[in-house]
């Protein structure tokens, strides 16, 4: 005997059409097992449906928000040039990136910006020939494996050195991030330009808004042309977000 299990839930719910209900009625009239099952199912359904609603505990949304921020800080390695990248898609490149030129093929800027509540949020923008497309870019001198960056933590001198060394080895740190507004990006860039007195021939590899020794700071990682035909360099400037004064600086020769 085949038992109409697929109809019995609807039967208990009172959801069956007349024909199906008659079919089940006819079946359980002769099937003690299904009759007993329907009785048990009704007990369960009645008890489950009369369970009181769950109260959402206070502070859950904040915990989730904290977990998301943590997730961003611990953003996994984004394999920009060799793996499967999963960064946020950007809808448009930041305006200041326009000047850099698509020929450079790879321009990645990441910002960790404070939102209105003072909590950090991360944003990235990329123009990899085709804005928003995170496909690997082959054949560029700058291509390399991805490397982890935790941009919202507090940097110190050693952290700046590590940042510069990473960039100098041809790697580009790309946190898994979301898009900063053009205004925020432009503000950070202006502060770096002003504080570091950039000349304009520096190519930004990464821009980060974070803290340095506890103070709100903008960090810029740039690729500079070599002087007098020398090798290209990676420079990292750190300026105060408050007054754009230089807090730190280091540079490394770019390793080819």
């Amino acid at each position, binding site marked *: *005997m*085949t*038992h*109409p*299990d*697929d*109809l*019995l*839930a*609807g039967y*208990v*719910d009172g*959801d069956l059409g007349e024909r199906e209900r008659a079919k089940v009625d006819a079946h359980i009239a002769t099937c003690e097992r299904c009759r007993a*099952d329907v*009785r*048990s*199912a*009704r*007990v*369960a*359904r009645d*008890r*489950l*449906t009369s*369970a*009181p*609603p*769950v109260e*959402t*505990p206070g502070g*859950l*949304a904040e*915990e*989730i*928000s904290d*977990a*998301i921020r943590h*997730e961003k800080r611990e953003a996994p390695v984004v394999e920009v040039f060799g793996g499967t990248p*999963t960064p*946020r*898609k*950007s*809808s448009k490149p930041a305006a200041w990136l326009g000047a850099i030129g698509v020929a450079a093929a790879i321009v990645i800027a990441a910002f960790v910006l404070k*939102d209105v509540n003072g909590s950090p*949020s991360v*944003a*990235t923008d990329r123009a990899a020939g085709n804005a928003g497309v995170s496909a690997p870019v082959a054949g560029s001198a700058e291509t390399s494996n991805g490397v982890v960056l935790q941009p919202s933590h507090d940097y110190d001198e050693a952290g700046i050195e590590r940042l510069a060394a990473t960039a100098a080895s041809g790697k580009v740190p790309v946190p898994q*991030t*979301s*898009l*900063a507004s053009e205004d925020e990006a432009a503000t950070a860039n202006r502060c770096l330009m002003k504080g570091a007195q950039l000349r304009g021939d520096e190519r930004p590899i990464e821009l980060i808004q974070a803290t340095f020794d506890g103070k709100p700071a903008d960090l810029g990682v740039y690729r500079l042309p070599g002087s007098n035909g020398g090798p290209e360099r990676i420079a990292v400037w750190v300026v105060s977000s408050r007054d754009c004064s230089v807090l730190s600086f280091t540079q490394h020769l770019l390793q080819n």
Partner: protein
Amino acid sequence: MSADAGAADEILARRAADGNDDAFAELVRRHERRVYSIALRMTGREEDARDAAQDAFVTAYRKLSSFRGDSAFTTWLHRVTVNATYDLLRKRSRGPEPVEDVPEPLASDVDDPAGRVAQELDVREALARVPEEYRAVLVLRDMEDLPIEEVAAILGVPLGTVKSRCHRARVALGRILTGEPEAALERADASEPSEGRSEP
């Protein structure tokens, strides 16, 4: 949920995928109640429910770009939530811990507040003894009052399978609640027949 709410969810999800964290915060605000509720009923413990709800939203955040609007956002989010509870329960290699000091059930008067509490604890404990895949059907269908079609979409199994699973899960739970010998529930899997059941 109204069509407007669904459309708003999808707009928010798209904005969040583009990096708008306020949009994601709004999605959390809108859906934390249901997500937590599913998580609590699946795990049976408040602490686990918080963890699972958090995991669910973090996973949703990470995978937002894979939400393509093929299903309603809530269907997708609830699938992520159920999977988060499975992961959490497996990670801890245990089901919900049995609730201690449960008074003898069923004789209680439902008008008696103490009796209600006892009954609630009893359901929670009984649910813990139902395999996860079956528990999920009971939680979504009978406790969260979602349509059976929605439950099938969330769990990603055919409608007929979910209907059968719902019935068998209810039978098993009903027997636990009434102290009858428990009905055997085989682990649900993809090869489970979706229609009927044959007498051995």
